[in-house]
Structures are given as C-alpha cells and as structure tokens.
C-alpha cells in the first residue's frame, strides 16, 4: 500500500506492506536512524518520536496509521545549525553514555518542556518513566532536562557539526550550571 505523511516538515511518500511498523518505515525507508528499535513491546521507549505533536512509541504504531499525519524525529531537533536546548542539556549534564535511549528521551523531554516549561523533578521523572536507560541511572537525564528548562535559548553558532572538531561542544562546558 502507499502512504503519505509529513516527516520533519517535509512530505514523504512510501510503498509499504500494511503491517510495516512506523519505526521500520522511518529507519529503513527514510534512513532516519536516530530513532532506535529496542523491544517491540512498547516498554523501552528507544523508538519514541512525535506523531501530530505527541510522543508515541513507533514500534507499536503501524506506518499505515501515520498516513496523513505529521511525524517529527530526533533529526529535527536541531534547527539552522543550532542545537535544541534539550540536546545541549544532554551534552552539558552528561545525560547520555551509550546514546541508544537518548533520541527517545530527548523527544519526550522536548514535548514536556513545550507543555510545561518549568517542570519539577517529579514531573520530569514521570514524563520519562516509560523509557529505559541502562547507563545513567536517570540522574543526569533529569539534570539535562532541568538544564534545558533553565536555558530556553542557546546562543547561535554554538555547536559544531559532528564531522568538525566535535570538541567545540565540550568548550561550552564552561557555561555549565553547577553539577551537584
């Protein structure tokens, strides 16, 4: 069957099997591999992306169900070469280690801050409670989201392309707010 949807602001069109999961459509057909596949049972949350502005677990959404809808993935968080504060917060507060859960965590975090710009620690923990991280023990993910809440805008030209000297991101650590 054919599906049409908007992905990261651009119309896309695909020929798919009706049973194809949205996570596989996004990864395998669109090549947007920032969204990960972790469990199949909507328990782990590595596949979280947005459908019509709401975070969904794309391993339990059929691509066909996204027909006519608007999808946003982690690749769309950065705008005009500027990281989203949530992305910057994860860097500044060491909110990631292996990086596998990170895109899903960040998509939920962005949604939370859009709806609740100043969440409490408990509200942050509740928001990400459907997503699993095995590396961080969540403490620095919470701090990363708190950092993003405290830094709603990032100064321009702050962070490099991955291919460039990645360390410019690290140079920004001088701006950090106090960790512990």
């Amino acid at each position: 069957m054919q599906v049409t949807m908007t992905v990261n602001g651009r119309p896309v069109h695909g020929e798919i099997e009706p049973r194809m999961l949205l996570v596989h459509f996004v990864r395998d057909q669109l090549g947007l591999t920032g969204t990960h596949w972790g469990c199949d049972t909507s328990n782990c949350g590595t596949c979280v992306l947005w459908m019509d502005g709401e975070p969904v677990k794309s391993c339990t959404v059929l691509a066909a169900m996204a027909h006519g809808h608007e999808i946003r993935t982690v690749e769309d968080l950065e705008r005009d070469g500027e990281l989203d504060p949530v992305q910057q917060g994860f860097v500044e507060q060491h909110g990631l280690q292996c990086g596998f859960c990170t895109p899903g965590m960040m998509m939920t975090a962005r949604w939370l801050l859009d709806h609740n710009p100043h969440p409490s620690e408990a509200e942050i923990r509740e928001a990400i409670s459907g997503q699993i991280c095995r590396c961080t023990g969540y403490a620095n993910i919470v701090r990363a989201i708190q950092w993003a809440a405290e830094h709603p805008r990032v100064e321009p030209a702050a962070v490099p392309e991955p291919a460039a000297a990645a360390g410019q991101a690290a140079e920004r650590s001088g701006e950090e707010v106090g960790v512990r």
Partner: protein
Amino acid sequence: MTTVEEAPAVPMGFGRMTRKEDARFVRGRGNYVDDIVLPGMLHGAVLRASLPHARITRIDTSAAEAHPKVRAVITGSMLEGLNLAWMPSLSHDVVPVLATDKVRFQGQEVAFVVADDRYAARDALELIEVDYEPLPPVIDARQAMAPGAPVIRDDIDGKSDNHIFDWEAGDRASTDAAFAAAEVVVAQDMVYPRVHPAPMETCGAVADMDKVSGKLTMWSTTQAPHAHRTLYALVAGLPEHKIRVVSPDIGGGFGNKVGIYPGYVLAIVGSIVTGKPVKWMEDRSENLMSTSFARDYHMHGEIAATADGKITALRVKVLADHGAFNNTAQPTKFPAGFFHIFTGSYDLQAAHCEVSGVYTNKAPGGVAYACSFRVTEAVYLVERMVDCLADELGMDPAELRMRNLLRPEQFPYTCKTGWVYDSGDYPRALRLAMDIAGYEELRREQAERRQRGELMGIGLSFFTETVGAGPRKHMDILGLGMADGAEVRVHPTGKAVVRLSVQTQGQGHETTFAQIVAEQLGISPQDIDVVHGDTDNTPFGLGTYGSRSTPVSGAAVAVAAQRVRDKARIVASAMLEVAPEDLEWEKGRWFVRGDPSVGAAIGEIAMAAHGSLELPEGVEGHLDAECVYDPPNLTYPFGAYICVVDVDPGTGQVKVRRFVAVDDCGPRINPMIVEGQVHGGLADGVGMALMEVMAFDTEGNHLGGSFMDYLVPTSLECPMFELGETVTPSPHHPLGLKGVGESATVGSPPAVVNAVLDAIGVRHADMPFTPAQVWRSMQGRPLRTDLAVE
C-alpha cells in the same frame, strides 16, 4: 568587582569536560550496527527452540525455501558438513551454532533464514517444520546433580551427569580450625538469582564476505573486536588477515557483548552462501532468552567471629548454574571468575571457598552484567554475611564493618585466597559515606519511625573490586594473553591520533583517552583523535569488559605517550643544541634547565621531527610510539555505599529514598564520566535488589522474555544519587588509575538488600524484593527465587 575563577572549559589533561562523542549522539547520528545498510544487503532471522530440552527428529525447510523472498535456509546438518555446527566456548566447552541432535534450552538456535527483508525472514521462520521428541528439563541447579537426573550434555563422550567443574581457593584446614575455635558462627544460604544485562541495543551483526578479495568485514555488537577476529579465524578457518571486525557505536554492553553468539557466525555463513552482505539483528525476546545471562549462584556462607565482633574466618560453598553450555567469558584459569575475592574488605585469619558448576536447561553464559568476573557475587556474599553477623551479635553493621576493615598500613595486602590488594584507605571511605549520609542521625530517625510503625531501613555495603585483567602469566582467554596495545602518533602540525585495542559501549573513550594523552603531552584533547573498534586500524588487545580499559589500555596509552615525550626530548635537544639531560618538561614543552625562555613546544618538535632537522644517531624521524602493556597486577578500587529505604507496611513496596556512594578509583581522568558510570551501577543495584529476575517454570519455560516480564529500573525507582570520593592511587599503574566501570554494580545490590531487610527486621531473604517478596518475608515465608515457578 570580584571574579570567580572557573575551571577551563577543556582541561589540558584530566578534569571535567563534556564528551566529544556526544556531538553525533544528540543529533541522532550515532552509527549502530542496525544503522548499517550496504548495497544488496539481505536480512537473517533465527528459528529458536520452543522447548528447553528435546531431541530433534526432523527439520523440513522446503516450504521456507519456496518463499519468494527467501535466499537461503541453513540448518545444523548443513553446518555439520562444513564442520561449523559447533564452535568453541570461551571456557573450554563447545556451543552449537545450530542445534543438530538436541535442543538444550528454550530459545536455542535451530535454523537460520536469509531473505530480502527482515519481515520476510521472520515470515519464513514460521514455514520451517521441526519435530521434537520432548525430554525432561533440568531447571533447578541442585536437581541437576541428583542421581538419575537427565543428562543434558550427552554430546560429550562418556558424560553421565551434569557436572562441569569443582574449584576451590583458600586454605581448608586453617579455615576449619578457625571455625572450630570461633565464639560465634553464623550460617546462611543465599541465592544471587539469574539476571540479565539487557543493554538497550540488542546483539546483531552485518557480515560482508567479498568473494573477490576473500575478505570478510564484520560489523558487530562486540566489546572485544580483536579477540573476535582471532576466534573467527580459529572457528571458521578464515585467514586472520582476511577478517576485519568493526565495532561501531554500541548501545550498551555490560558484558552481554563479550562472547560470540551463533547469530554472528550465521550472518557470516549467510553472506558466504548468498554472496551478499547479511544483517542479523535479534529482537528483545531473543536477547533476554538466549544471550549471556549473569549470576545464578546458589551460595552457602558461614562466618566466624569473636563474641565482641572480630571476624576470624569465612567459608563458602557455591553451586553455579552455567546453563546448557559452559560459555562464561573469563580468564581461563578461573572457572569461578574472581569469586575468590569473597573475603572482601576485611582482615581475616582464614578463608576457604568451593565452587561447583553444573549444566541446566537454560541459556549459557554467566559472566555478564558489569560483574568484574563474579566479584559481584563475592561482594554480595560477604556483605550479607557481615550483616547477618551484626544481627546475631546485636551490633550496628557500620560499627562491625569499621572494626574489621583492613587498615591503610596493611597495603599492599595479600588476602587469604591470594589476591594482592594494591592500595586502599577503607576506614576513611566508610567514614565519609557515613558523614554524607548523616548515619547516626538516620539511625535516630529510624528508631523514631519504628515507634510509629513505619518501616525505614538503612543498608551498608563496603566493597573491594579487582579489575584490570590481567597479568599475562596468570590470565588469558582461550590462550590469548590479556595485554593491550596502544599507538600514539603526533602529526607534523602538532595534532595527534591515538589508536586503542579497546572500544567503547558508552564509556566515553573518545574523550577520556584523549585526556590521557593530553595529560602526558600537553596537546589539547580537542586536537587528539581516538581511533578504536576496528581491527584493521588498531593494535591488538582483548577489549572492554571487567573494568579493564583504564587499568590496561589506559596504561598502554600513558606509556606510549610518555615514550613520545621521551623522543620529543631528543628531537628538542637537536633543535636547541643542548644535551637531552639539560632539558626539563613542562606540560606541552621541553625547555632548557635554568633558562625557561629557551625551549620547544610539542608542536614545534613534531614539525621538526618530520622535517629536515638532523637527528642524533639512532633516532628515527617522526614523533610516535607504541606500547603493549602487560599489567603487573590488577587494580583494586573500593567504596562504601549506604542506601536508605522506606517500606510500605501495607503493600511491601520499597522506595529507595537515598543512596550515598563513596568511590575510590584513584585519580579520575574525567570526574563527570566517572560519576555517570557510578550512577548507572547504582541503578543496576536497585534493579537487581528490587526487580530483576529471570525465572523459569517447571516445564523450563523462560518467564522473563520481554521487558513486560523482565523488569528493569525506570526513572521512578531511582533516586538522585549522592556521591563522594576518596583518592588512593594505584602504586603500579603508570598514572595511579584504577578501573571503576563496574564498581557500583558490584557494590550496590547488598546495600539495597541490607536496607530492605533492616527495614522489615528479617535476617535474610533472597532478591529481588518485589512487593510480594517483601510482604512474604515479613510474614516469615519468603519466596524461593532459586526454584522453578509452579
């Protein structure tokens, strides 16, 4: 106006800096195995055994082969023809790639399908018919050794039972004597249940056999790319120089990705058979049911002491459930890993342990989940026994520990089972943890709450880790010594590259290893590229697990960088026309002693070394060096943890209120990364103590095959951890560093368990403390987590 001096954003060496690798990860531009797409790539899927123990009487693949999208169907009998049906395990046993005679655990690999896409490959699995003759399963490790138990490994000539090994350490006679003379003896059975590391990324591979060049490129989720390459050469008979193993970004390892799984080999076979690249990526159920589990130690501990609380001896018997094949990944000479560090952090007269391994109809593995080769089990045993003794004596567990901890002047300390602890100041770490926690105040609060019927618990643990395997004369895996190579090269313009034998699954090596070189050479970490995870582009070494990267590879890099510095001195002496002995080093620069204005910076030296400068006799140009580091000893990080829990008396629900962790891993390359690793390990402890268990029913069905059934901690179970540190350098590591990656996973479970038992006033019950287990323990009838579920 006052100014506050800030730490430099990027330290010239050790210190907090954000991670270089994060630039790609936060953009969703990591490159994990499942992200790799090659032209013409096919997809593989594994058919797995539905029964835990059964004879295969027939496999019919004709319908699967007729599927229009299927390119190949591979069975065990086909592999037998290639002499590939079985492969060596990491513990001198064999493991089937695909079952030929019997299946021996639920989820074992039976057939492999290669198809055009991943959905079609799984469709075709449904078309394969397998006839099984069911056999009685052996699920309980104790029943495995009972007379008349079904023999699981009848593939081994003459095998008539399920016994694997007996092993002992320590001195039996002196231990028995110490027990005979003891004023107090406490005995306790305890189970460290079967758990699973469950990294967020499951295991997988992309195999690409180039038929023209004969070269295999293997992208795979491996923590040990070089060891894998050698093993592929040995197993498949492929020439080693025609194998390239690439470990790209890895979504968490925790020991789960040390071994070679049948799926990896099957992807290679699939690529050879079809002439196309083949991707195999397991799903979560496959990961939980078939890949390397952890623990499953059934322990009987005894502790002897004087009436006033001086511990004199420990005695332990362990039954180790290794599953259907002995495939633990650990140094060959240590079938029970490093369990014999079970004397822990205490000054004893004698100790003895016996460990017996048995086969059961469960998945193989055993050493995984950040355990430092079974130090996790050892620390759990001793820290529970100390709490049981405290209960017997009516002593505060902190006071009992403080009375028995090794004293700083006893280091280096040879423990009763032969380990040589390199350095430590244990009482200082415990005191610091108690101060951070406000221990005495917590005990007062606990007493008040008890008056009101509230259940609050305070649990301690003190651990000694042994990490950085290991000295070549003592430690190898399948004959490969556990040394690691490193190469440091300074480019003409003063930038540098360091090539590592180890790789990262989230540890941040691209940052920390640059910091090690920066510390030695005075080149900014931003100007140092770290190359790792690709056997074609890195020196040989055994990989990242057992917290060995910093102790072994970190030392190799430090020594190589120091050799670069030494060579730079000679080049600088030629540049400055002074004797090398007249030069002094300050970070990044050699200068003339007594005249600091005359000198050469490392960048200038690098350009000169690559240029036309006339160099002294015997000095080659360029500025590089390498090192293969054979560690003289392991390193012994340690720490003191205090966990505070509240238990709902109505439901048995445990809430971790506080978790204080003081870690000593020597100097810290990047404190931010160390703290992150400690956080993760503390969460592991919360998970194992409260939630995680891989249970089986009496039929041998796996009851933890998804994240709906195998529970791991979420943000709601984990508190904001409170960390502290002491710094006791290792005397033998070139930079004084110790490993830390697994410290918290090793140290945290007993702290949580001790806290729960303290809250409910029960001497012992087994993990995990689910609400049901807490409730039943309060009623005096705890669940037996070691038994099959009726």
